[in-house]
């Protein structure tokens, strides 16, 4: 397992590098507004969806001297900056698209080559705005997040175990079950201070949760470490006899935990699927609830060797 621990977030201790997103959600600039100035602030910009709060966020990043650019440019800059003494890095996943999060996790596991503490930061969304954003019915599409997360190829005679994070969107949960036809499904529902999320999620996915081969598991949206451990343990147990698909929806914490498990699990590496908008999603602004959740992983060369080479030499093995 990755040495991942939940830590207290400090606004005062500056990081060497902070990677965040300059997006259309108001929440995407929240950290830049509250944390001590990092040595190098990096904010990812997409070509699309420069709407809603994007201009305000862009102004905030520009005024604070952060570098705004595409992901590959930012990761190159981060790699260079981490070569300094005792580097520390924070990655704000709150408004990060899942495809970007996947690329960042792959970069951390495969490309970084220094010993570094990485803090994953997450600002939960205000419930009312999350619910409003989720109520839109869009055409969705489902598939692996990218090639890196497509999972180990194993005989299709092995049954599929589907581990889903439930969000508030209709169709996603049941659609995944119908598409993949798993023999067993674990539905993870986020528990936080706002109990409405879990209540609404259970209502929206009522038909899925009542299915005979489904099991509901709750996870603490304030703890990446315990969510990661729960997923890791489940995948460890299921791996030998199942092909595992992790399908995160809902809070980003679950997406990150899924990717960290999949990136480091071997030999039966799970796939991570995205079920999301098929075309251009209609952007919906989301504001932060005000809290910041932090979890830390200490990446060392020993750890990375194990992850990359693995016990049987499988790419991405552990």
């Amino acid at each position, binding site marked *: 397992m990755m040495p991942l621990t939940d830590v207290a977030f400090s606004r005062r201790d500056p990081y060497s590098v902070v990677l965040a997103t300059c997006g259309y959600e108001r929440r995407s600039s929240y950290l830049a507004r509250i944390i001590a100035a990092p040595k190098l602030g990096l904010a990812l910009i997409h070509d699309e969806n420069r709407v809603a709060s994007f201009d305000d966020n862009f102004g905030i990043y520009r005024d604070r001297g952060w570098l705004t650019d595409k992901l590959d440019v930012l990761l190159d800059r981060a790699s260079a900056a981490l070569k300094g003494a005792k580097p520390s890095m924070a990655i704000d996943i709150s408004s990060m698209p899942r495809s970007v999060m996947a690329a960042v996790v792959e970069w951390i596991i495969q490309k970084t080559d220094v010993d570094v503490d990485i803090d994953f930061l997450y600002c939960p969304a205000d419930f009312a705005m999350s619910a409003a954003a989720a109520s839109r019915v869009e*055409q*969705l*599409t*489902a*598939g*692996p997040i990218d*090639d*890196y997360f*497509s*999972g*180990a*190829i*194993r*005989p*299709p*005679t092995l*049954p*599929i175990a589907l581990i889903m994070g439930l969000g508030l969107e*209709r*169709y*996603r*949960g*049941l*659609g*995944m*079950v*119908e*598409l*993949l*036809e798993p*023999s067993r499904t674990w539905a993870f529902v986020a528990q936080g201070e706002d109990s409405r999320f879990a209540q609404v999620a259970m209502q929206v996915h009522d*038909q899925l949760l009542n299915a*005979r081969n489904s099991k509901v598991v709750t996870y603490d949206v304030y703890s990446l470490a315990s969510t990661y451990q729960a997923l890791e343990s489940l995948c460890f147990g299921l791996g030998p006899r199942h*092909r595992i*698909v992790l399908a995160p929806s809902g809070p980003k914490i679950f997406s990150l935990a899924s990717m960290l498990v999949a990136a480091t699990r071997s*030999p*039966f590496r799970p*796939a991570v*699927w995205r*079920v999301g908008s*098929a*075309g*251009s999603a209609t952007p919906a602004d989301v504001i932060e609830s005000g809290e910041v959740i932090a979890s830390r992983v200490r990446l060392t060369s020993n750890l990375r060797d194990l992850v990359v080479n693995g016990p*049987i*030499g*499988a*790419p991405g093995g552990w």
Partner: protein
Amino acid sequence: MTQTPDWSFETQNAKRMTPVEIARSFVVPPTFKDIVGTDHCYIVGPRGSGKTTLLKMLQGEGLMAWEGAQARSVRSRVSYTSIFLPADDLWASQVHDENARAAFTAQMLYAFIETVQYRQSARDRIGNPVHHPIVLGHQAEVELVTLLANAWELPIQGRSLGAMQAALDLYLLRLTNRRERTTDQFSAATPLSLLNFGIRAVNRLANQPTHRWALLMDEMELAPPRLHREIVSYVRGGAENLILKLSMSPFDRYMETFGVGGAPIPGHDFRAVHLAGQTKSEIRAFTVGLWKEALRAAELDASPIRAALGESAITAPRVTTESRSRHYEALSRAGHEDADFARWLRRRGVDVDHLEDLSYIESSATVRKVYPLVVFRDSVMRLHNGRYEGRPRKKTFDPFTGADALITALEGNPRWIKTVFSDMLRFYDRSTGSVGQGFQFDALVSLANRFESLLHVLPSREHDRNAVPPMWLVDRLAEYFHKQNTGRFQPDPQNNFIVDRRTPAPILDALVMGLYAGAIVHVRDRRSPAVLQTFVGQRFRLAYLLGVRDNREFPMRLGKDVSLTTIVASSLAGRQGARALAPGLTEAQLALFGEVQNDAAN
């Protein structure tokens, strides 16, 4: 409430069942006899239509566990040994042209070894005798494994079939998911030639030089193009001792090569068996068979389906006084409230107050034909003073329930039938031996919700922003047919569509996905090609199950045809609407939508 049905019926998906489990609840569909022979065979049907079940029933374990009336004769007709090779969406998401050949080969050879192990055992896993047993002594097994390891260039740790399987398993685990081509034997050689080597080796060592084997490949449409071409080309030029039985969706993305330049020809090189093209009586017999099986699995007394679910309003009433009076009552109410219907009746000289005076022939020529439509309109419309004033406070279940309606709605799709029967039987009233109308309807709606959820997440074939979502097309079709049936009364509303030459490619792509999922049904007739290669001129309809959804109801019957372009254009707000739907539409395609809309308006 009754107890939940047993596992073999409750598990609706054959993928999750062993051949033995399938055999225990197997109801023989009319198409089964067409696939058991020694022809190369394409089993064509949408998701859930029973393709996997049929293939798994050709495996030795399934055949030997089957106790049905036809079991003995089918067992003797299956003169070959079957190797089952499944595929699914997860597998399809992991393979691509660069790694597909190696992954496919390793999995196929793994299944081959597993089948050899089965034939070599004295009894199968549940103690049944083995189908086509062979005896390989230790020395022969060592010889076989050595031969295969050399031919397949596979490093192995021992000289047993188990060691061979372990080596294949390890090969798969090491196979990278990345888009880099490997150069080993599994990537370089033609997959079926490696299998053929193994077959010849086993046949020689077992002293059965002419024994045939069948490779049963499920969900063939999921294979990447290159692999698909290689396998399909084998159908024409392959070896005598290997038969291919492939299951695929109703439209094969790569079928353009069929019958051209030495490619296999439907009807000549292979037999095409359509699971969705059954007659009404075949569908009925199959559904009734599954009904009996569902009752047995739930440990309920046998009860005829019509007695348990009741008569349907979509069929002409039986001769009982009660049903006939319901029939007249519905027609009479519509005749008084719907001015258009009243006019139509007057033109035919029918007096709604004296329907009982009509002779059988007069009734057949007029009201019997429109009765299902009248019931449908009565269910989903509120008519007042001769006008349509929106929906009723609560729609009635009449058009969608009763034995005949359920049989029609479920289309002979075994997964749908099993799902609905399992749901309904939880509410089976033992005292009356029936299931209430509301529970029947709820079971259909629950299934329709699941089906709609699947349609929402189907992976886009093109993975591009120009793709038209299949759910968008399905909803536009449903809305169009809903309007046709709930507008001014017409005895034969449009309920099916013909694909015209003007239909843009993104709409055709959505149609392919709809066919694959079973949301859109090809209405086959005697002139239909064995395998659908082009859509133009072909007739389609929506799956009837989708007609139970609120505000998009449509009746479960065929009607007049309309062109697909007309439907699509009528639902788009001009060029802007078309552009918003599919940004990749060309100017010519956008102009087309404008033209069709103008035609419709004029």
